[in-house]
């Protein structure tokens, strides 16, 4: 966390024009070559705009914001949009809008009940729609549960401590992942899945600390969970101990993924040990 805070401080200095030319170019180099770092800079930029609009910038930073940051039209436009978004959110708060919609709905429902003929006609239609929608939803839920159960079974089989660790081949894509904040300059190449790929094997360094077992949570770029797997096995490969997670290739689509790893401590609680980010390219 401290490393992230230090990085964010440097990014803010970069945006406010406080860095010398050499450090500035180092940041620009990373922006150009590391997608995740560029995204971090854009997020810090947004937070800088919000701090300015909220009036929480220090005087020295506020001066630099006005003289350096706002000197380009693109930044001035971003500020205008941020201001418009804050104003819109204040004028159209989602919670209050929902409560207003509810009360209107209640009033209409009471009126409909009073108008019996119309209500009876409507109610049969509503019942029919609810039955159809309910059946569809139940089917979707059943299908999702079945798929998830199948995926869990496959993951359990592939990652059983007694199971084989596949060697990299046309059908097995093996990749070593580095933790999110310890990436080298230059960025990581995407994992390319071809029609021949059946299994994706992710190799992770064993985190420091005494943990009984490890949990892995895979999420896509929309931050939707793909799966949670408890019991990532530790293996010895090439003389080195590492965590190896084998995943059916069909789970992936062309997208950015984050694998969050946590360790089960002696108190029975899971502690976050690191996030691993990677991009997948699925070739048809």
């Amino acid at each position, binding site marked *: 966390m401290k490393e992230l805070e230090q990085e964010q401080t440097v990014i803010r200095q*970069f*945006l406010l*024009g406080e860095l010398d030319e050499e450090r500035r*170019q180092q940041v*620009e*180099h990373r*922006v*150009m*070559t590391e*997608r995740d770092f*560029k*995204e971090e800079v*854009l*997020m810090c930029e*947004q937070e800088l705009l*919000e701090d300015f609009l*909220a009036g*929480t910038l220090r005087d020295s930073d506020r001066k630099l914001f*006005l*003289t*350096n940051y*706002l*000197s*380009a*039209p*693109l*930044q*001035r*436009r*971003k*500020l*205008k*949009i941020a*201001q*418009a*978004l*804050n*104003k*819109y*959110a*204040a004028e*159209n*708060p*989602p*919670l209050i809008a929902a409560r207003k919609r509810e009360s209107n709905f209640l009033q209409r429902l009471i009126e409909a009940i009073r108008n019996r003929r119309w209500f009876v006609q409507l109610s049969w239609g509503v019942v029919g729609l609810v039955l159809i929608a309910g059946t569809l939803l139940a089917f979707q839920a059943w299908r999702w549960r079945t798929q998830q159960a199948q995926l869990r079974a496959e993951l359990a089989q592939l990652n059983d401590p007694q199971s084989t660790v596949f060697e990299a081949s046309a059908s097995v894509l093996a990749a070593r992942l580095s933790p999110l904040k310890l990436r080298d300059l*230059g*960025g990581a190449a995407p994992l390319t899945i071809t029609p021949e790929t059946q299994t994706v094997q992710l190799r992770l360094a064993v985190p420091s600390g005494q943990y009984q077992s490890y949990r892995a949570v895979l*999420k896509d*770029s*929309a*931050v939707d969970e793909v799966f949670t797997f408890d019991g990532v096995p530790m293996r010895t490969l090439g003389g080195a101990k590492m965590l190896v997670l084998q995943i059916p290739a069909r789970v992936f689509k062309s997208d950015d993924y984050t694998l969050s790893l946590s360790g089960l401590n002696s108190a029975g609680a899971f502690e976050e040990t690191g996030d691993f980010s990677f991009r997948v*390219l699925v*070739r048809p």
Partner: protein
Amino acid sequence: MTKQWEDNFEALLAWLDPDREQAGVKYEEIRHTLIHIFSWRGRINAEDLADETINRVTRKVLELAPNYNGDPSLYFFGVAKKMVLEIIRREPPAELPESDKLQDLRPAEPNDSENVHECLDQCLSKLTAADRELILLYHQQEKPTIEARKQLARRTGISANNLRVKAHRIRAGLHKCIEECLKQKTAVETD
């Protein structure tokens, strides 16, 4: 556009990626990043500078690509750095007086603020209901604090860091939509 230029451009795309669609994505990503780098350096004409950088690389790509090892975006960065040095020698970054910069926050030109508001409304309506609600809740606080954002993360059932990333991605999509909408409005107004 000459045939030579078209050939060079095709070679540029092929250098970025053998898959033309992926090459197009990488091209846009590079252009977008260059615009930001020039803009963060205070350049008024960041888009023109980014395009000039790409033009310079495109002119050289036929001799460059066969022997180049490594990430092509590094080469673009190298050309951009040289351009920055050229520009600094010619002219310093433009600095507006503070009062002129603050003008942008005041509705001095009603049409401009109105356009942004209209485009924002239009673009918000294109979001899914869940994304719309999340981004409005995220921006609802008068003084955004870490604690307020953590509370919002708990309510939405995702971690604070994931909420930050999700809000950023929704906002990035909104920005792109608003920029396109504003361009269309400007084009209509100048017709």
